[in-house]
């Protein structure tokens, strides 16, 4: 009897929810689930401070949108697609989460995007690098913000080749992200008249790079490129400086470096390294003002991912406010139609494949003499316009693009 009653009530309730979703906000709450690596390798570039950035966007709305309460839940994905999948499934199926934010490891984002599509909910990827997230793995249910491997390769590799670095040796982290970066870099180097004379795939993570650096040195290439991330990159840079890579006339190119990595290396070891970034805290008054606010809460300067999490949450809430709905497709459609203009991006737009394209920046790490304070780390050399930076839709393998 009670069983029957339960079934009936849940049937009625879900019928009501489905019916109401198009027009208004279900259960009068906007629930945001923040999923990121909170304790491992990628903690500092997003992690707990990313949650703080997300909460800043919620604060800007006074904790309410159209009278509906904004609730934030968070979880540690431990960089495991399995952990991430079960968490997101619970969030979407039992806890009525409307938006999944954060999303750092590429493997996690790809796994989560499938579950988002199954449940027709929205996700915004802010931390991942793989460009395949909006290419082979695109869905109508996720948006990729901040950056990906395509502009990283485009920005840094083309700049270094133009400065005369013709022959390249690439040290690649041996997993999906590294492979994607390696192939993007190879394409850019060859397109600019350079040549990749050797690649070496190292295990992830690698604590000691001396053997690999020695091989890169012996290759005689003009440029030693690092297609890896986090501790692998900082370890490789440290070892390269120990073994005198730059003194022997080779250029070191790090393809993915976050502000937190450069801060950890220090300007002494990292000076002169060129990198591509989606945002830098010290670009203008707007970015500085927001970064001051962020620093008050966290004690550190924000990475591009922190800024992206704030900006994407803000844009999401604005779309909910404008449409009066929390239905994934309604909100996504509105977000795609509205240009993004905030402290993170100017005239950013979300394409049919879910890629948010915006200007990227080629930066160089300052020398100890130029750096005035602890976080005064980059000088911006060049702005890479959005359309030049990202993979053009004409090259896209995303089915959403061809059906458009």
């Amino acid at each position, binding site marked *: 009897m009670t069983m029957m009653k339960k079934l009936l009530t849940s049937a009625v309730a879900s019928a009501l929810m489905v019916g109401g979703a198009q027009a208004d906000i279900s259960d009068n709450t906007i629930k945001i689930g923040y999923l990121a690596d909170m304790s491992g390798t990628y903690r500092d570039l997003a992690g707990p401070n990313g949650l703080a950035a997300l909460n800043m966007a919620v604060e800007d709305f006074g904790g309410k949108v159209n009278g509906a309460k904004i609730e934030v839940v968070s979880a540690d994905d431990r960089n495991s697609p399995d952990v991430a999948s079960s968490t997101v499934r619970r969030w979407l199926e039992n806890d009525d989460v409307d938006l999944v934010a954060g999303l750092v490891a590429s493997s996690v984002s790809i796994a989560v995007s499938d579950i988002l599509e199954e449940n027709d909910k929205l996700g915004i990827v802010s931390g991942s690098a793989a460009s395949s997230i909006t290419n082979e793995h695109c869905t109508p249910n996720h948006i990729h913000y901040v950056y990906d491997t395509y502009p990283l390769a485009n920005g840094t590799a083309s700049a270094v080749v133009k400065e005369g670095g013709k022959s390249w040796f690439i040290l690649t982290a041996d997993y999906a992200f590294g492979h994607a970066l390696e192939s993007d870099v190879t394409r850019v180097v060859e397109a600019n008249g350079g040549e990749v004379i050797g690649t070496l795939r190292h295990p992830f993570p690698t604590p000691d790079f001396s053997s690999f650096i*020695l091989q890169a040195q012996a290759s005689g290439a003009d440029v030693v490129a690092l297609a890896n991330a986090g501790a692998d990159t900082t370890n490789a840079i*440290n070892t390269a400086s120990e073994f005198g890579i730059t003194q022997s006339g080779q250029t070191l190119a790090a393809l993915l470096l976050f502000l937190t990595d450069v801060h*950890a290396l220090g300007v002494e070891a990292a000076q002169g390294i060129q990198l591509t970034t989606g945002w830098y805290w010290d670009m203008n008054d707007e970015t500085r003002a927001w970064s001051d606010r962020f620093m008050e809460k966290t004690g550190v300067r924000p990475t591009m991912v922190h800024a992206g999490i704030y900006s994407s949450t803000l844009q999401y809430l604005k779309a909910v406010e404008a449409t009066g709905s929390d239905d994934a497709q309604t909100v996504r459609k509105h977000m795609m139609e509205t240009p993004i203009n905030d402290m993170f991006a100017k005239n950013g737009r979300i394409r049919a494949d879910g890629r948010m394209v915006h200007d990227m920046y080629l930066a160089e790490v300052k020398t100890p003499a130029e750096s005035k304070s602890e976080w005064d780390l980059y000088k911006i050399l060049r702005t890479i316009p959005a359309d030049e930076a990202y993979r053009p839709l004409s090259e896209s393998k995303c089915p959403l693009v061809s059906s458009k």
Partner: protein
Amino acid sequence: MTMIFGVPLAVLSGQLLIGVINGAFYALLSLGLAVIFGLLKIINFAHGAMYMLGAMATVILFDALGVNYWVALFLAPLLVGVFGMLVEYFLLRRIAGQDHIYSLLLTFGIALLVQGVLTNLYGVSGLRYAMPDMFKGGINLGFMFLPYYRAWVIGVALLVCFGTWFMIEKTKLGAYLRAGTEDAQLMQGFGVNVPLLVSLTYGFGVMLAAFAGVLAAPIYSVTPVMGSHILIVVFAVVVIGGMGSIGGAIITGVLMGVIEGLTKTFYPPASSAVIFLVMVVVLMVRPTGLFGKEA
């Protein structure tokens, strides 16, 4: 130029030397594990955390008090050693004589706690530690550029390894230690303070780990998670050498460094797996390890 399997001899010599350097490092770390297991029968899963504490202490002592590298080389292991003795006195002692799994779980828990607390305080990006001035630069050996610091690491690590082996296997103190763990009651009867001996042994074992941590500070990213990566490799080294065999841990450590180095030259993607492959083969052929005593 002479080539061996398509690799120039000069490059190969360089890789062999690098292998020996990394091997010396493995030897130092597995030595502490072997001492603790061989004498106390504790499977010390906190060993990676102790290594990390040694490195973190070096950086923190420098940042907060300006303690230089040479002082840290003694002070950091000493502090970590005292911490280890406290852990032994308050926690490990309570499960003495129980199945190995208890000490494994307890030390693993301690490692996670220490790692978690430090991650919250310092993040995971890594702390900066500058190379001491006298070690800057290196020497060109003809076939490779050898940074001075790496030469120092290999020398000091092998010296400490040999000293430890000598002390435990060849001196009276070592004999007490071995006897105390063999038959505690009898040694107690001879008036030897066995519980103190046990504390000191554990403290000494983790000091070796912390010492390796200090050596690592100028060349590797110092982060709260640095120990968790290396722990498993070092355990494999100890298993290959024969659990508890002190000389075995040292020789196997150097050997594995070289094997790993060669793999890094001929087929890099397998370099993190090769040690485990060796472990599987050794366990199949000689379940007690290369230098382990027959059970």
